[in-house]
């Protein structure tokens, strides 16, 4: 019970990692065979380049969103507003960087505070007002983009700020800085959840809210916090997205990313009904999506029909996860063996 490996297992025990990993490995095997130089890595100016690094770099936003989304889903909720919150943090940071003299050390916390507060607003609607999460977060999903537009005045705000550009394009110890960020967030979130009782409370509230309240857990604080945390993750992802293109494009950034994040979480073994969660699984789920997207680009699949193969993979992984489906299939094979 006390060796490090089983301890680590206990940290990431929600659901099964196996199916997400299986999907990812299958996809990577396909890429290995059919895509030329998929695993080739190059070192230029001391920085690592290659398709795999690209996937990790591009997937950083989905991975961040998935971290926050995991906790929200673990409480039995869902956060549809993350894409719009990305737009807001990007817009706010871009405007502050171009139109004021504030240093980046102030701009980033400001932008993140804004999204945390908006996330907490979602949490208020869900926990205090008792609105269904899907409806409550839909409000900001639709309205958030409008707020971002208001901040930028409907324009695409471009910037050349060195520090801000570094955030999404820089390298740290040879690997993209975004990856460092994701890694730090994963470690910080895991520590927060498993070295304190936060993880226990999140899972308890998601599994049986009434029983949790009767045991003395302040359920509304738990919910408020996870939506706020999801806001933080969305804010970070929004900063990276703006930095990537050196501009705040309020109408396009983070579009449909909430769905990618939800998918990443579900594939990663956290049930939409709440309860046990698995942060590592969500990260792998996010990588699965990004690998799929990148594979389709390298294979020259036209963007217009790209959702079709994506949907097929999603259905496949979800079917594999369904215990009912698996026993059914096992039944078919069993019967054939008997006859």
């Amino acid at each position, binding site marked *: 019970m006390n060796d490090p490996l089983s301890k680590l297992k206990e940290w990431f025990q929600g659901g099964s990692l196996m199916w997400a990993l299986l999907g990812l490995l299958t996809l990577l095997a396909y890429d290995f065979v059919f895509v030329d130089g998929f695993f080739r890595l190059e070192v230029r100016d001391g920085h690592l380049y290659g398709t795999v690094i690209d996937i990790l770099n591009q997937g950083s936003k989905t991975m961040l969103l998935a971290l926050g989304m995991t906790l929200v889903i673990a409480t039995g909720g869902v956060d549809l507003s993350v894409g719009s919150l990305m737009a807001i943090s990007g817009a706010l940071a871009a405007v502050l960087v171009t139109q004021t003299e504030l240093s980046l050390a102030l701009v980033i916390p400001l932008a993140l505070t804004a999204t945390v507060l908006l996330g907490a607003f979602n949490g208020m609607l869900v926990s205090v007002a008792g609105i269904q999460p899907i409806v409550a977060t839909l409000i900001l999903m639709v309205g958030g983009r409008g707020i971002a537009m208001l901040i930028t005045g409907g324009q695409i705000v471009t910037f050349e700020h060195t520090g801000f550009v570094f955030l999404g394009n820089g390298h740290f110890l040879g690997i993209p800085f975004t990856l460092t960020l994701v890694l730090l967030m994963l470690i910080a979130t895991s520590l927060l959840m498993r070295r304190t*009782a936060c993880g*226990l*409370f999140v*899972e*308890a509230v998601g599994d*049986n809210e009434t*029983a*949790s309240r*009767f045991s003395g857990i302040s359920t509304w604080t738990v919910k408020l916090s996870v939506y706020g945390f999801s806001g933080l993750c969305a804010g970070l992802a929004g900063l990276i997205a703006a930095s990537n293109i050196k501009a705040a494009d309020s109408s396009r950034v983070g579009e449909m990313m909430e769905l990618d994040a939800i998918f990443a979480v579900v594939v990663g073994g956290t049930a939409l009904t709440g309860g046990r969660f698995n942060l590592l699984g969500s990260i792998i789920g996010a990588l699965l999506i990004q690998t799929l997207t990148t594979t389709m680009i390298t294979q020259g699949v036209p963007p217009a029909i790209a959702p079709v193969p994506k949907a097929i993979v999603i259905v496949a992984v979800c079917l594999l996860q369904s215990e009912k489906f698996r026993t059914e299939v096992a039944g078919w094979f069993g019967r054939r063996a008997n006859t």
Partner: protein
Amino acid sequence: MLFGIDVADSGSLQIDGQPCVINHPRKAIAKGLAFCSEDRKGEGVIPTLSIRENLILAMQASRGAFRLLLRAEQDQLCDHYINALNIKTPNAATPIGNLSGGNQQKVLLARWLAMQPRLIILDEPTRGIDVGAKAEIEKLVRSLREKGMAVIFISSELEEVVHTCDRVAVLRDRRKVGELTGGEITEQRVMELVAHHE
């Protein structure tokens, strides 16, 4: 109502002579109360979490999120209560949902006993569990009483009420229709009180 789940229509509450208002379970727990619901599935167990996590839940909640009980303390608590209450399980990591009703009930009792409450409210604690566990729970309640813990034992089974209680208040249609103590407590007397008043 006493535990801060529902709001009282009228009346007042005094603890140690101090009037107080309890409007959330957290406050009740802080005052040393504990409540084991009759709806074990809906208001008691967290089915996919382990016995250990279910057992420490109330204790951890009262400590707050950032003062996690040491793992050694958690294991010690689990070992203690699994032995003391004779909970039948392979180990403390088993999800509570896999246990029988009686053993689930024992884990919930342990959750509250770990808090060492001054008053524990047991609402139909023996409902829907097997005869063996039922007898064990009745025995447990009697031993708690002997240790000096106040127990409110809510039940609609007369036999176990007569076996377990020192003082019986009979309620009918939300009103108290009589109170019995000591030797007065017989099934006969309780039935009379229930049936007598119009």
